[in-house]
């Protein structure tokens, strides 16, 4: 009987493949920047530059641990603002307004939607992060020969934070809570990333170690020294990469759960 039904059943249209649909989502999301995101990127960049100016009042220039942390933390903060805060808001809104139905009724792998969107959001942050790093290096008189490391830090820290942001947005019971959680995550990235770790109490330092952006900040901060320890930089980036995989897997699971809330 089941064979009979199968013979008569309409053949299913093909699924959208992972990479092409990831590309399509990425391209569509990137185009949103022209419409909606540019003002927010200015906000993100000015916020980080404002923190640099403020910290310059209390931290001396030149190659001190504090100066390195402030510059690296402010630059990665741009990523945290966009990837964590805005991303949580975006998915929170999409879920609350029924926008997820659009994707859920297309034969597209959840990972394509999450990764494509996360990739686009991480890309938005590139100019702001580079500008913040350049301004920071100038203000604190740090060398910028290794600023290129940001090209590794942005996608890795961006992916890790975007995964967390998406999961917060998709799992929060209400849109306002998604916004609130995104904001809290960003505040944590701000306080724990910009302030030098050696000045923190033990408990706060543990919390700092739990935050994915910390490893991006540390990787970047290490490259300001005269002779960077590349093994440690690589290790930090590796932690970012592992957390990225985990957090994006979490986000994909959350998407699946939110899209088919049965």
């Amino acid at each position, binding site marked *: 009987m089941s064979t009979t039904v199968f013979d008569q059943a309409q053949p299913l*249209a093909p699924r959208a493949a992972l990479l*092409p649909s990831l590309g399509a989502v990425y391209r569509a999301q990137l*185009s949103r920047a022209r419409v*909606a995101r540019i003002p927010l990127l200015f906000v993100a960049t000015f916020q980080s530059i404002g923190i640099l100016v403020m910290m310059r009042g209390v931290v001396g220039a030149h190659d001190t641990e504090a100066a390195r942390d402030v510059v690296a933390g402010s630059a990665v903060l741009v990523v945290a603002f966009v990837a964590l805060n805005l991303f949580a808001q975006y998915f929170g809104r999409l879920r609350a307004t029924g926008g997820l*139905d659009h*994707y859920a*009724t297309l*034969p597209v792998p959840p990972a394509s939607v999450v990764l494509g969107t996360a990739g686009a959001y991480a890309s938005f942050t590139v100019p702001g992060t580079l500008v913040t790093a350049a301004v920071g290096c100038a203000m604190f008189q740090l060398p910028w020969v290794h600023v290129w490391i940001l090209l590794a830090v942005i996608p890795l820290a961006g992916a890790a934070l975007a995964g967390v942001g998406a999961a917060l947005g998709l799992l929060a019971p209400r849109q306002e809570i998604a916004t609130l959680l995104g904001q809290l995550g960003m505040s944590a990235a701000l306080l724990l990333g910009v302030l030098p770790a050696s000045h923190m109490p033990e408990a706060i330092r543990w919390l700092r170690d739990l935050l994915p952006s910390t490893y991006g900040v540390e990787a970047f901060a290490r490259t300001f020294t005269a002779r960077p320890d590349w093994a440690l930089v690589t290790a930090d980036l590796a932690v970012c990469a592992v957390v990225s995989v985990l957090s994006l897997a979490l986000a994909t699971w959350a998407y699946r759960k939110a899209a088919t809330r049965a």
Partner: protein
Amino acid sequence: MSTVETVAAEPRAATAAATTAVCCTVRDVVKSYRVGRGAKATEVRANDGISLEIRRGEVFGLLGPNGAGKSTLVRQLTGLLRPDSGSIEILGHDIVRHPDRAARLLAYLGQESTALDELTVHLAIETTARLRGLSAAAARTATADVVDELALGPIAGRPLARLSGGQRRLACFGAALAGPRPLLVLDEPTTGMDPVARRAVWSAVDRRRRADGATVLLVTHNVIEAETVLDRVAVVDEGRIIACDTPGGLKAMVDGSVRLDLVWRDEAPTNLPLVAALAGRASVSGRRWTVRTDPDEARELVAEVTRGPAFAALDDFSLSTPSLEDVYLLLGGRHEGLEK
């Protein structure tokens, strides 16, 4: 023994014949929601045992007021919600067991456009086509065709969020058409559209039906739309289907009766015996009285209210043949919510 086999074989043959002609079968679908929290939570039955059959190639409608359970039913057909109980089969596939297959069988136009709002019309359609599994080249061709078909050219470069409600709806409809599907599920597709856009929608639907034999499931609360475009319609009220037939067949249920609408200038002159007699039978909505009656009595009533003191108090009147709204009322549906 042989008798038993024959009996067993017959329904099987019948099922086999039916599956070729049937696009979608819904059996006893029940879906409840919890409303409120904690002790105050109450359970609402959005769908209370719905069964229906949609034939291949027909335009089938779900008509009912807001909150009747139409969208809930559609969300189960599209695999977005799982029914509490009951079965749903689309083109030979069990959608309750394999909700993911719905996306590969049907195109869905929901009521919301937030996923596409910040994209340009062109990119929204092209991206949707890509995510529907089309290659880059095929998606570009499909987009160009849809933009052309729906005359979206002048607004193709503008983001959806900056369009009027009707234009945005048309763009989303375009996205639903990008990439072929044997079943189109359209939830109130023409909301906010001007007559030109509405016509574009119905021509596009008709073209797909004639050229590809596509089946269309349409959700609407617009009576005129239901009467003009649907092959068959299921009338939904409070989570149940209260009737299912062709619009003509449904209207035959109230055949022989006509509707007389009287609109008074202000208060109805109930001191007149004729008007006082009508007061008991008319359904009153503000200054408007609606009376359902047979054509002969209607003619007499019109003659009487259009002379003397009754006519002086009368602002407007109309006599009309029954519509699906009358059917809906006859079947005991609530009055509010249908759009004429």
